[in-house]
């Protein structure tokens, strides 16, 4: 056990020393990884902020209820009674004459309405339901459609659905990109480690000859891969921090134009830890693949 710990400490010290002796290579590899990782994680952050915008907007779904032109007075009364029930927060009646008057008042449409011989608009109710969930809204909307005298209802929550759908696509893109860049990360790490293994060919051969196990030989390279990955993750954090600082002012300006105090939020601790953990893991994985392959090649070429 003590020997094992000693091996690990020795490997870690060796690794740190190697990284220190090649600051330029280390920096370049870390930067390549950092830029690669910053793309999916940046997109993830952007989406998170966008989702926050979406949830901040006043969510007031409305149901427009259009009556049959020939609806009877009883039917209209029944509908009015139905809309006084507690699942309706507020309901506003818009008679067809008023609707036409509103339409005519708007300058763009005045020409069109002036040419009409009769009013084509139905009587309508603008209903604001108590419920806000998508399912409840659809259920209410359907039940209102079935009332006698109702021609059709129109559930006005489409913009929210579309935004949600777009965000969902964005999240999928984050995962796909994340997967691709994880592969890129493994490749970058594997390549860096392969160069290291080849540079230390003699050491590996001699170590094998005097009794080093495969694990003993792998260990410093695995540490190297993991540390490179961690540095890559930190570099990604740096890239995102710089991008965030640059974007902060224009975003706040835009939000100000909408009368909002919105500002960009940085990632939380869990997200930072997850990114650093994953980059470390993928750096290690690339090193493992590379060193295992190279070990066999080095020995075969002996």
């Amino acid at each position, binding site marked *: 056990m003590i*020997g*094992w710990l*000693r*091996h690990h400490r*020795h490997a870690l010290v060796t690794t740190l020393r190697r990284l220190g002796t090649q600051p330029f290579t280390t920096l370049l590899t870390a930067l390549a990884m950092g830029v690669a990782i910053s793309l999916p994680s940046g997109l993830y952050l952007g989406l998170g902020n966008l989702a926050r915008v979406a949830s901040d907007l006043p969510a007031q779904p409305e149901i427009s209820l259009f009556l049959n032109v020939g609806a009877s007075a009883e039917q209209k009364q029944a509908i009015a009674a139905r809309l006084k029930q507690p699942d309706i927060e507020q309901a506003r009646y818009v008679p067809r004459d008023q609707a036409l008057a509103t339409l005519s008042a708007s300058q763009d449409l005045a020409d069109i309405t002036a040419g009409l011989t009769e009013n084509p608009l139905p009587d309508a109710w603008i209903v604001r339901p108590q419920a806000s969930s998508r399912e409840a809204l659809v259920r209410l909307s359907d039940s209102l459609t079935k009332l006698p005298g109702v021609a059709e209802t129109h559930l006005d929550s489409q913009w929210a659905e579309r935004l949600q759908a777009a965000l969902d696509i964005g999240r999928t893109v984050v995962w796909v990109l994340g997967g691709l860049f994880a592969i890129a990360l493994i490749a970058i790490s594997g390549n860096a480690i392969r160069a290291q293994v080849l540079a230390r060919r*003699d*050491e590996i*051969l*001699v*170590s*094998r*000859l*005097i*009794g*080093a*196990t*495969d694990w*003993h030989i792998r260990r410093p390279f695995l540490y190297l891969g993991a540390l490179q990955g961690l540095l890559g993750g930190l570099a990604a954090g740096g890239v995102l921090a710089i991008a965030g600082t640059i974007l902060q002012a224009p975003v706040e300006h835009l939000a100000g134009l909408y009368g909002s105090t919105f500002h960009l939020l940085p990632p939380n601790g869990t997200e930072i830890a997850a990114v650093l953990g994953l980059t470390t893991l993928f750096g290690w994985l690339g090193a493992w693949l590379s060193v295992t392959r190279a070990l066999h090649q080095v020995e075969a070429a002996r």
Partner: protein
Amino acid sequence: MISFSQVTKRYPGGHEALSGVSLAIEQGELVFLTGHSGAGKSTLLKLIAAIERPTSGVVSVSGQNISRLSRRAVPYLRRNIGLVFQDHKLLFDRSVIDNVVLPLDIAGFDRRESLKRARAVIDKVGLLNREKAHPVSLSGGEQQRLCIARALVSRPALLLADEPTGNLDAGYAADIMAMFRDFHQVGTTLVIATHDERAITALGGRTLHLDHGRIGEVPA
């Protein structure tokens, strides 16, 4: 300690380095391997250290069958064997003491204890004042002695040396052979491949002669 039973080693390409070799070496013996170059001396040593595997026959070292030894077990076998190479196989990016301490690092010894042992061995091979030097600045004889120090630092029961005096002048060669005699006297088993006749007569011991992959005992 070492036994070969009808061992044949054929390299890819068809060259047969050893043909039906049988031999036995007891613990504490000093054995010279002689023969022209290409007779199979190096191959025989490599088979003992599991650097090569026999094509047929059984090689057994300390009761372990080398042909059946798994890749995982090989390092532990080698930790009990000191290897002296004709081309030294030193690491040129580290100092004399770091080269010698390498086997102990690999075996997981305490660093301070390792350095103490390494210094003792370096002193024995007469390189103590070159402890911090890099191998590149050492002469051929000094490099060979460094290689021997590295082979001995883990106090192996068996020392295999391939042409340890091959490229050295007579003075250095005598020094090194004298060192081997000391190790033999403290009970180390030594197998030395050489064609240095003077060394063999000076040290005595058993001589095995290899000729085109076949072995014969040379009467002392």
